[in-house]
């Protein structure tokens, strides 16, 4: 072991202690509300086909990019409130906010839509802040952030029209959408308040249901705090036919644009006929820890990244 390595790991101790505490508070938060903690396979034969999420191959199967499909199969079998804290793997994702292996917190409730997930997130983040004795006011990267709920909610349409001068719901240009998100939208968000972005163009719906009465948007929400994209929520799509069509179209695009074979997740699609109305959310645990450690890089909240493994 080099001196640098010893020093690096020693310096991480306060953040890693805080990380353990946050995991503890999170588990308490869900257990007290009768959520069941679950573990599902890290290695699986088929995951949700998503063009911009590249999985690692594992002897013909793949390492999970999210536990979503397994969690929904459990909901289809009658489970009502479930959560999981799991390691997920996404190829090529490395930066201040990314490591190819990261920790995801996912939870689901039946009988609700995505609003319930936003309320849960507000509750969880405030619970952690209170436990650290900060009330509802925290400091991140030099900015005071007021966590008082409810957090401001904006539709994607309104945000883009105001900050980027166009409406992606009317004109769903995915490439421009992503570029403007990181160059125009995120930098312009209020640094002193969390922000929830709602109702994505249906083209970016993925596994979210279309908003009733608004066929051009999907009930998908993204939660941002201090410039960190923290969580992604859906009112889950429960229609097997519609989900199949979306998957088949995505598999086709992946094949055509990336020459990559994405298997069709049959077991998941078959379970959808039994999936009740439900909502779910995936939260980047490493980023939540970063927020409460005032960390600018994921490297400050995990002991070993792909570069130090």
């Amino acid at each position, binding site marked *: 072991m080099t001196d640098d390595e010893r020093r690096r790991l020693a310096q991480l101790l306060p953040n890693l202690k805080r990380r353990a505490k946050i995991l503890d508070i999170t588990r308490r938060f869900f257990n007290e509300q009768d959520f069941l903690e679950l573990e599902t396979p890290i290695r699986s034969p088929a995951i949700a086909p998503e063009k*911009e999420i590249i999985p690692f191959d594992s002897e013909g199967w793949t390492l999970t990019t999210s536990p979503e499909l397994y969690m929904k199969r459990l909901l289809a079998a009658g489970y009502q409130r479930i959560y999981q804290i799991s390691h997920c793997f996404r190829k090529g*994702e490395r930066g201040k906010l990314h490591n190819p292996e990261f920790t995801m917190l996912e939870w689901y409730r039946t009988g609700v839509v995505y609003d319930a997930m936003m309320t849960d997130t507000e509750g969880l983040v405030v619970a952690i802040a209170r436990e650290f004795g900060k009330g509802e006011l925290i400091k991140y990267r030099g900015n005071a952030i007021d966590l008082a709920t409810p957090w401001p909610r904006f539709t994607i349409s309104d945000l883009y029209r105001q900050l980027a001068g166009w409406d992606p719901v009317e004109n769903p240009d995915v490439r421009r959408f992503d*570029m403007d998100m990181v160059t125009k939208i995120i930098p312009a968000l209020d640094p002193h308040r969390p922000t929830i972005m709602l109702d994505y163009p249906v083209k970016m719906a993925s596994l979210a249901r279309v908003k009733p009465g608004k066929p051009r948007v999907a009930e998908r929400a*993204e939660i941002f705090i201090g410039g960190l994209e923290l969580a992604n929520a859906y009112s889950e799509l429960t229609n097997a036919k519609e989900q199949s069509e979306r998957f088949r179209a995505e598999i086709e695009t992946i094949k055509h644009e990336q020459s990559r074979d994405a298997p069709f997740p049959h077991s998941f699609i078959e379970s959808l006929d039994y999936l009740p109305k439900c909502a779910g959310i995936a939260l980047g645990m490493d980023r939540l820890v970063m927020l409460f450690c005032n960390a600018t890089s994921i490297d400050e909240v995990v002991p070993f990244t792909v570069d130090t493994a």
Partner: protein
Amino acid sequence: MEVENCRKGTKVLLDNVPYNIEDAEFMKPGKGRAIYRFRFRNLIDGTSLERTYHSGDKLQEANITTREGQFLYRESDHLVFMNSDTFDQYLINETQLGNKQYFLKEGMIITTLFLGDRPLDITLPIFIEATVTKSDIATRTDTVTAQMKQATLETGLEIDVPVFIKEGDTIKVDTRTGTYVERVVTKK
């Protein structure tokens, strides 16, 4: 090369000009396409610029290497160097070196930056020592700069030195600023 493989320190060509990636930022909106923001440093003039790329975009990799070389002599508008390992000679144009040429003493070992086989630039030591070949007699009329006077060094550099410096003295010069540091007392 694909932007996915570009890192801090990767050398690339933008419009045929070599740049070093000084800072690489990976951004990825949820479920969206990866975006890379690079800050580039121009390896010739030192200016910097920022550009943003999508995953799948390509950049031209620059084959940049550094080699040790010895400054031999001037020949018309070129300076002639010799590779310390292979003893091959290479030329660098005066204009390409700019002011750096006035800090070169014959025999001096310097690091040269190459793009492929083409020498681009040199890195000078922070301090050099050189002999004063010509210096004015101090005039006491200019009160503001009365303690300084102009001198010329063996390297061709014109420099302000304290009045006590004489022709034949050796002085230490800061190559970053081109200014006088101290007189070097040579032991006899």
